[in-house]
Structures are given as C-alpha cells and as structure tokens.
C-alpha cells in the first residue's frame, strides 16, 4: 500500500484558497483542489495551464464543415450528376447551409470528447475516493490534495502545515 497523498478538508471555499496559497508559498507544486463548484481563484494558485481545448473545438468545426461540403460536392459533381430543376450541379448557396450545421456538430463533438479526454474521464476508480472525508454528498466540502510525490512532501511536516492552514481534517490517501 503506497501513499498517494494527503487530503485536507476545509469547510469554506475561502479557507481552501488560503490553504492552497499557503502551501504554494511553502513551495509545494504537486497539489490539487476539489470543490463542488468551480473556483476561479485556484487557477492562478495551482498554476493551471491555459487549456488548448478551444483550438480543438475550432478544428472540429472546420473539419465537420469541410468534410460535409466535400461529400456534397463529390455527390453532385462526380458520383451522380443530374439536372435538378435546371440548377447547376454545383449550386453552392444551398450547400453552405448543410456545411454550417455540420461544422457546429463537429465542433460540439470535439469540445465534449476533448474535455473528457483532457480530464481523463471516465475514471471511475481514483485514489481521492479512498479519502473517507471525500464526498459531495452533503453539498460537499472543499479539499486540498498534496501528492506524496511532491519533492517537498514530508509526512509529519506537511500534515502540520495543512492543519495550521485551517484544515478541519487531514487524512492520508492510499494510492
């Protein structure tokens, strides 16, 4: 049974932020915070990198639109050219509409799948669930995780620091 890290529980979002900032000042890097709802402040403290997902979404959109337009073009020009109402084979105005919809669809899929992939979800079994205190059941508390792999991690020391930073409870998590 190796140790995954220390989980500190806070009652209030502010406490969590304070703690996170404090731990960071103490030089901890491998940290993560858990909260029932998003907390912007943590981004800076935890040095959460700016996500590149928007580019993924853009790519998805373009891919969808281009693919579908190409399909349409192929079908009317190459595969089955037929005179429909005296309109040209490649009458682009109507085709744009479908391409647009396809673009949206592509983008949406890219975004959704992208965020799941980037977050490594689905992940049904994760060490943090080992923490007795970790639950969103009653609205959830606010958790700060210091990973055991953090260079500055010292068992007793870290626990002490967290408690001093106002953690209601600090527990060790099995990996």
């Amino acid at each position, binding site marked *: 049974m190796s140790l995954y890290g220390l989980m500190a529980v806070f009652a209030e979002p502010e406490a969590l932020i304070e703690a996170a900032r404090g731990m960071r000042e103490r030089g901890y890097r491998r940290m993560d915070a858990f909260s*029932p*709802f998003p907390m912007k402040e943590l981004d800076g403290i935890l040095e959460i990198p700016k996500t590149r997902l928007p580019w993924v979404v853009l790519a998805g959109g373009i891919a969808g639109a281009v693919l579908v337009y190409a399909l349409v073009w192929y079908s009317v020009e190459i595969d089955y050219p037929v005179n429909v109402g005296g309109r040209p084979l490649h009458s682009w105005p109507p085709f744009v509409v479908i391409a647009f919809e396809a673009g949206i669809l592509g983008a949406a899929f890219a975004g959704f799948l992208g965020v799941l992939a980037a*977050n490594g979800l689905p*992940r049904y079994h994760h060490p943090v669930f080992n923490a007795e205190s970790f639950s*969103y*059941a009653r609205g*959830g508390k606010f958790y700060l995780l210091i990973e055991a792999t953090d260079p500055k991690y010292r068992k007793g020391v870290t626990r002490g620091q967290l408690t001093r930073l106002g953690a209601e409870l600090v527990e060790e998590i099995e990996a």
Partner: protein
Amino acid sequence: MAEASANSPAVLHGRHDFPEISGRIGSIVLNGRLPRHFWTAFFLCFLLVLLLLYSITYLIAVGVGGLGINMPVVWGTMISNFVWWIGIGHAGTLISAVLLLLRQPWRASINRFAEAMTLFAVAMAGLFPILHLGRPWFFYWLLPLPNVHMHWPQWRSPLVWDFAAIATYATVSLLFWYMGLLPDLAVLRDRARSRPAQLFYGILALGWRGSAFHWARYQTVYFLLAALATPLVVSVHSIVSLDFTFAITPGYHSTIFPPYFVAGALLSGFAMVLTIAIPLRWAFSVKDLITLRHMDNAAKLMIAAGMVVAYGYVSEAFFAWYSGAPYERAMMVQRAVGPYAPLFWTMLSLNCGVLQLLWFRRIRRNMPLLFAIAVAINVGMWIERYIIVVTGPSRDYLPTSWGEQSLTWLDFGILFGSIGTFFALVFLFIRILPAITIFEVEELAEEEGKLR
C-alpha cells in the same frame, strides 16, 4: 408571499447552506417520495402516450390518407406540429446557452429543466417529419448512406437541411445538457445509499471528482458549447422557416420568415417554460429557488419575442400588399376573410392580444393568471403554424385547384398524443434527475453571500 410586493425580487430567497440545497434538490430524486398528484398527472400523460402509439400505428397501416391532407393542401398538422415543437425547444437552449453567455445569474435554477424541455421537445419534433412521409419506412433515404441504388439526398431541398439542423440541434443540446449534469450526477452518486442508485449515478457521473484542473477545462468548454448553441439555435428555426420561404407558394415565399420564426419559437418556448415551471415550483415547494424573479423575467422575454412576432404578422401582410403580386394579395385577403379566417383571428387575439396583459407586473406576478396566459400562447402559436402551413396552398395560383383540408381524429390524436408524451418525459426526468442545477445554485448562493 411577502416578496410579491418587492419591486425586484431576488433570484434566491432566504439563506441556504450547501447541504440544504443539494439535499432538497437531491432528495426529490433519491428518496423518490413524490406527491400523489404527481403520479396522477403522470398516469394521465401515459394514457396520451398510448393514444400516440395507436395513432401512429393506424397512420402507418392505413397511410397518410388518414389525415386531413388533400390536394391542394398536401401539408397539414404533421408539419405544423413539427414547427411548433421545434419552437418550444428553443427557449431551453436560449436560457441555458445565451443567458449563460450573458452571465445572467437568474438562469441557474431553471436552466436544467429548460434544457431537458428542449431535448424532449426536439424529440417530439423529430417524430413528425417522419410521420409526415407517405412512406415513412424510407425516411433514412434523406441520409447519405452507401447503397446499391447509388443514390444521394437532393442537397438543395430544405427538407435535407432540416434533417441536418434537427440532428445537430438534438445532439448538441444533449451534449450540453449532459455536461451540465456531470457535477450533479457526482453529488447524487455520493448521496445515493442504495447500491443500484450508486452504480446508476456513478456510471453516469464518469467518476467526476471536482478537481480544480477539471473545473478549469470544464468551464471553458461549457462556455464554448454555449457559444456554439447560440448561433445553432438561431440557424435551426431559420432553416425550418426556409422549408416555407424556399417554396414559391403564396404565403410561404417571404423573407421575413427566419427572424419571425425564431421570435415565434422563443415566444412559444418561454410560454412552455412557464407552463412547466409554475406547477413545478408549487408542487415541490422550491419557490425560494425558482423565484418570482424567474417567472417575471420569462414573462418579459415573452413580451419581447411576442412583439417581434406581431411585427412579423404586420410585415407579412404589408409585403403581400407592397409586392403587388396578385397571388400574394389574394392569399392574404383569403387568410383574413376566407375559410380559415376564424383560426386567423383566434391566433391574432391570442398571440398579440392576450400577450399584452404581460405588460402589467401584477399579472406577471400572478401565477395562476400567468399560467393561463402561457397556455393560451402555446395554443395561439400552434394555430399560427397551422395557418402558415395551410392557407398558402389552399389559395394559390390557379383558382380551379383552390380547396381546403379538414382535420380528422388522427390529426388530433397525434398532436395530443405527442403533448402527453412530452409531459410524461418531463415527469420521468424530474423523477430520476435533478431538475435544478445543484452546483450552480450553490455557486450562486456563494456569490450572493446567502450562506448561513
């Protein structure tokens, strides 16, 4: 209700703490003790579901000849139902996506079921283009599938655009909705005591653990999806309106349709939101989460949309006259005095007349009355769609082919059946998923500093 007199009631009432919020919302789902009238209502809806199934079976066995359609009015209730349902779907997306982008805090407690409503409405709408077909079992010929007939869809046809638009809209709404659900599913997972419930919600929650890193990406993409949904929602009903404007039939061939349809969609959509929310907040006593403020804003949006629709009516008539095309003019006159006149005037009085009541705050804050108005608008909007569909062809170019259609029991069986099915789905949703977004309400409570 003390707050009724307050000028601008708050989005959230009283003080809450997280356990209380998640508890109250979650318990609706988890310990499943729902009031009796809930089940009575559900049963009634279920009867309508049976009606729908019977009607559809009959329709497929006998053919679309069972409907009122005829020459020259070959389109009928299947199309108007379709447009109507799609329209209803729009409010959901608007609330969840557009208001999210506009950072409107008050959306928080109603967006979840608004989105659900969108999904179910789109599901209903999706039925009708298929039921409309003479040979419904071949509906998939609208898709570009590999086949030994070497056949392709005819991409110039608005019906194909429809197909694309509806499919996209349904999918995107579903993704958006599911993404919004993730954190709440996690809450339910953790609250669940029974193993099956744990597994059910656990699997759906995908192991969500609320990591700050996840939240960061989650927020970004959630906003992006919203940003995608907004042009989408506008495009969808514009494309639906192209089914009509693309045709040269008098009364169809009009440039005002896209904006006018979108506005109509919002009008009917918000009407439906109110039709659901008012009983909901009463039945589950979440009056302090879904407050008068929500109702009030929805009503105001209805006025806004309604006025655009009214403008649509006016400009339709004006351009019919201004175009100088005798066919357009004759059609408009016929609409007002012809065989469909009673419907036409009913529509105007509902969508433009009754609507005006919402200018008064007392009425906006009077739930029973607001509910009645919302229902009236829903009816009015259905009539509008029906009128648009039938009056054009019934009075088109050659007088010798003029004629009216008359509805059969089947037309109504399918319409009411679909309404029943829609509400049955809403009930199921309330039963098994949190009808109010827990995490956003909590966030809201946090921001509003309404924490004990």
